């Protein structure tokens, strides 16, 4: 294969190959324009699929989708996306465009992944463009010492090694093109088959991982964040970490750029000690990575309770996961809102061109509830000045109702149950209100503990009760004490760390890598995340966190008052609990898996997606978990893992993604692999059994995690370790010895020694026969010595 790079007149890079022979066939005159710059001194050979277009990896997707068939659970049996409709898709009927319910269900999956990818990608684009503006296009990107493979996902997908902001921008050009194509496939009369909608969802999930990686790489490189630091600082979190004596600024969202201008302005003007800035959601992680003195208030579900508490002198919103009615809520407690992002201007007047003091005056006097500002420098000045002026004024304003007032108001409850029926978790809100009639606010406080802060109960209440505020008041004693230590986001995993753990992970001796990611849509509070992480860290899994889950896990303290981050190291190693950072930093988890293939197995990364995904799927016992998955971003993040062949578990609310990817352990023919050494077809055990799975509860999550860590390539020692964990957790939570152990035993040496008798009995009962341990691959062309063929 001859691949050439060239600079075009417009300084765009062009990848050109007269003939490209790949496992997918032979292509003539391939030519791809990739942006503005080119990497001509990287000697790693280019793999077969640099910057794959929408269908280039389709055959890989189809392999996964044939083994892990989608099981759809439509939330709607109608389609109303075009004026042909509404169309009734029940009982095998097709819409006017020809689509059936399977196709429509898959189309919804793709739509969600597109939306999620777009949110990350737009964030990434803003970050890179902004940093180019600030630091120039040639500013060098870095993940810090000990990281030579700085952007493994990007290298793998695009074949580009982004070394400067300009090159990062070129990578985003590619991503944006792909997103346009996958989004267009959702249009009426484009894609028609479920499997191709799904394949495109995988594609955009892969693109999403690139976009996230670039966003984090850009901010880590330019903003002085911890760089691959296992000892990133421990920072204080929780509502009580905010100092009420200072002017409080609450920053909500995901894009840290506006908040950095606030912090910079405060220190440059010598007022840093007069303000306290705290964040909700991923902006919290990134302000703390920028300045360890910034506070992490809590996950997304805490935004309403904190705003209602009335502490914030100014509320700053950037993008993603902010309450769209934030202005209304903030107005009630006289907190001005500053919208800083074009995606969420919140209906506020654009005052970018006005004089700062005029804007501050209008906000402080209450003449306007908030402003939208496009100029970052102005944001910094307006926010700091407004917060300092608001602080003494607002102290006098009450926010939450008194306990006596709640008791008085509760008397008129109509016992209509509408609050319960509106609650996503079926919380006993009405019963708590009835208890409040008697002056007992305990039940309202209990509801607070498991509340995700959505306020659906109060918007359903015919009496217009501010039920969420009542809960916040009832639990005041608890949240006012809320303070816990979390580890700031460390960024990527070092190459040196991968060198240490690569082999034990691939051999199965470190039984797995668990990636807890995502949001706070918990079914019954967040304790499950902590207990899960603690149990698996004890079992020597590597447990990695990002996003809101990384905050929630820190809220649980041991008897000595220590959080999991204080108890466990932040290195990428057995028994550790790491925080990589905000949502976009979760790309480092995929990056770590990719680097295992590169550093330990010495496989080429560059433009070599299918081979590396196949490697990870068969060898790296990684399991993604999103106990509180909520957003479309979580959907696209999951899709990125699916394409890498990494299974993802979601909590019960994750059923609302409406499609699982389920393996059938009972169908031997689904579990055939090629033995890369011999070219033989070999049957392996069902591992990982599923690719996307919503668990019903904590107990099922415990057992499923251990089971999904099993891989065909486990060595005997690795397999026996993994089975020991699976058996032990199964006995604990399911109450009996699992009946499928014999299917995972290939040779005697796979049997955990202490369980020999039981397993032997099961093997005998099931007429067990010894099985080969292949060098497993799903891709025939990867059979060594040319014994494989195209497929």
């Amino acid at each position, binding site marked *: 294969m001859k691949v050439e790079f060239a600079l075009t007149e417009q300084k765009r890079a062009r990848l050109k190959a007269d003939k490209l022979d790949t496992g997918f066939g032979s292509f003539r005159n391939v030519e791809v324009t990739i942006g503005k710059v080119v990497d001509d001194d990287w000697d790693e050979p280019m793999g077969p699929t640099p910057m794959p277009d929408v269908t280039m990896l389709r055959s890989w997707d189809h392999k996964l989708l044939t083994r892990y*068939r989608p*099981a*759809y*659970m*439509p*939330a*709607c*049996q*109608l389609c109303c996306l075009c004026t042909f409709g509404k169309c*009734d*898709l*029940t*009982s*095998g009927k097709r819409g006017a465009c020809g689509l059936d*319910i*399977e196709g429509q269900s898959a189309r919804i999956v793709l739509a969600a992944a597109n939306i999620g990818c777009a949110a990350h990608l737009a964030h990434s684009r803003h970050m890179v463009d902004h940093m180019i503006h600030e630091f120039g296009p040639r500013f060098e990107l870095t993940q810090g010492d000990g990281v030579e493979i700085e952007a493994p996902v990007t290298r793998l997908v695009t074949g580009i090694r982004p070394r400067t902001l300009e090159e990062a921008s070129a990578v985003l050009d590619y991503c944006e093109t792909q997103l346009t194509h996958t989004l267009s496939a959702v249009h009426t009369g484009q894609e028609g088959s479920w499997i191709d909608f799904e394949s495109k969802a995988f594609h955009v999930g892969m693109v999403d991982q690139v976009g996230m990686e670039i966003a984090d790489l850009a901010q880590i490189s330019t903003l002085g964040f911890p760089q691959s630091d296992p000892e990133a600082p421990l920072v204080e979190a929780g509502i009580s970490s905010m100092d009420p004596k200072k002017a409080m600024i609450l920053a909500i969202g995901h894009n840290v750029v506006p908040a950095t201008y606030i912090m910079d302005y405060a220190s440059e003007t010598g007022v840093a000690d007069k303000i306290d800035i705290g964040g909700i959601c991923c902006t919290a992680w990134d302000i703390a990575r920028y300045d360890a003195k910034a506070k992490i208030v809590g996950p997304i579900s805490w935004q309403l309770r904190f705003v209602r508490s009335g502490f914030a002198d100014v509320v700053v919103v950037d993008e993603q996961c902010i309450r769209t009615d934030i202005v209304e809520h903030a107005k009630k407690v006289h907190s001005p809102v500053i919208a800083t992002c074009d995606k969420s201007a919140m209906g506020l007047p654009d005052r970018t061109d006005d004089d700062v003091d005029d804007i501050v005056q209008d906000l402080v006097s209450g003449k306007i509830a908030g402003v939208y500002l496009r100029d970052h420098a102005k944001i910094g000045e307006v926010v700091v000045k407004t917060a300092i002026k608001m602080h003494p004024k607002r102290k006098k304003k009450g926010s939450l109702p008194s306990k006596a007032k709640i008791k008085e108001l509760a008397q008129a409850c109509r016992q209509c149950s*509408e609050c319960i*029926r*509106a609650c*996503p*978790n*079926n919380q006993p809100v009405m019963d708590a209100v009835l208890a409040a009639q008697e002056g007992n606010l305990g039940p309202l406080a209990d509801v607070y503990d498991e509340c995700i802060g959505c306020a659906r109960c109060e918007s*359903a209440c015919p009496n217009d009760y501010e039920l969420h505020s009542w809960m916040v008041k009832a639990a005041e004693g608890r949240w006012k004490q809320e303070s816990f230590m979390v580890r700031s986001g460390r960024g990527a995993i070092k190459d040196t760390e991968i060198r240490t753990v690569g082999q034990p992970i691939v051999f199965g001796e470190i039984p797995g890598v668990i990636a807890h990611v995502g949001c706070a849509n918990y*079914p019954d509070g967040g304790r499950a995340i902590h207990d899960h992480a603690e149990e698996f860290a004890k079992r020597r899994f590597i447990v990695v966190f990002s996003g809101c889950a990384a905050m929630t896990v820190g809220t649980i303290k041991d008897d000595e008052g220590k959080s999991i981050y204080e108890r466990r190291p932040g290195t990428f190693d057995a028994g550790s609990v790491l925080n990589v950072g905000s949502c976009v930093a979760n790309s480092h988890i995929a990056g770590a898996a990719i680097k295992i293939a590169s550093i330990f197995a010495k496989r080429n990364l560059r433009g070599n997606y299918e081979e590396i995904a196949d490697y990870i799927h068969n060898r790296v016992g990684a399991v993604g978990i999103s106990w509180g998955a909520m957003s479309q971003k979580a959907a696209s993040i999951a899709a990125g893992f699916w394409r890498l062949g990494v299974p993802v578990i979601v909590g*019960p*609310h994750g*059923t*609302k993604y*409406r499609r*699982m990817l*389920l393996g*059938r352990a009972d169908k031997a023919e689904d579990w055939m692999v090629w033995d890369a050494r011999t070219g033989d077809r070999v049957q392996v055990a069902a591992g990982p059994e*599923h690719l996307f*799975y*919503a*668990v*019903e*509860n904590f*107990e*099922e999550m415990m057992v*499923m995690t251990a089971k999904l860590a099993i891989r065909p390539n486990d060595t005997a020692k690795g397999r026996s370790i993994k089975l020991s964990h699976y058996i032990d957790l199964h006995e604990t*939570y*399911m*109450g*009996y010895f699992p009946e499928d152990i014999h299917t995972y035993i290939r040779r005697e040496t796979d049997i955990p020694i202490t369980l020999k008798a039981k397993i032997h009995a099961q093997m005998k009962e099931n007429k067990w026969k010894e099985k080969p341990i292949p060098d497993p691959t799903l891709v025939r062309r990867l059979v060594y010595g040319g014994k494989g063929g195209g497929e």
Partner: protein
Amino acid sequence: MMRAEPWQSAEVCGPTKAQGIKKTAVVGALIKKAKYPLLVVGAQALTEKTRKKSMIDYFIEFSTTHNIPIVATANTIKAFKEKGFDNAYSYGAMEITGRLQDHEWKVAPKKGPHDLVMTFGFPYYMEWLMLSALINFSPHIKTVTLGRYYQPHATWSFPNLKKQNWNDALKEILTPVGGAK
């Protein structure tokens, strides 16, 4: 008796919706007619009670009376095993939802496939989606939900019931129509 409308008010569905069970004899008749019924019991059965009886005990009695196997999801299986009940099989809620879409599949070797599936014990929204999968992709299966709240995606569902009425209904359906099978 409350109305037959989704308990979580946003969970409306498509053009067809479950028939409200007005008389419990309907359930008895469906069981009697079914060739291979199946009961799918989720983890809320571990904490719910009907009168003073645990739902696990109730379903053991139900299963024994009507000779219907149980799929117990998540850790619900533990409770059945602890009571020495051996007609319960372990599958995840999503796994059983997937398997039931396979027209060949059955929980134990018997003439299949399952043609009647009764459900209980899941978060409302989860059961709503599980039943949606079955209504859309398993047209050979009729579904009955035995919980207190109306599930529009079932073939048959109680309307939203007061606890007392639900207890009465559960008691009534323990008695087989025309004697045990």
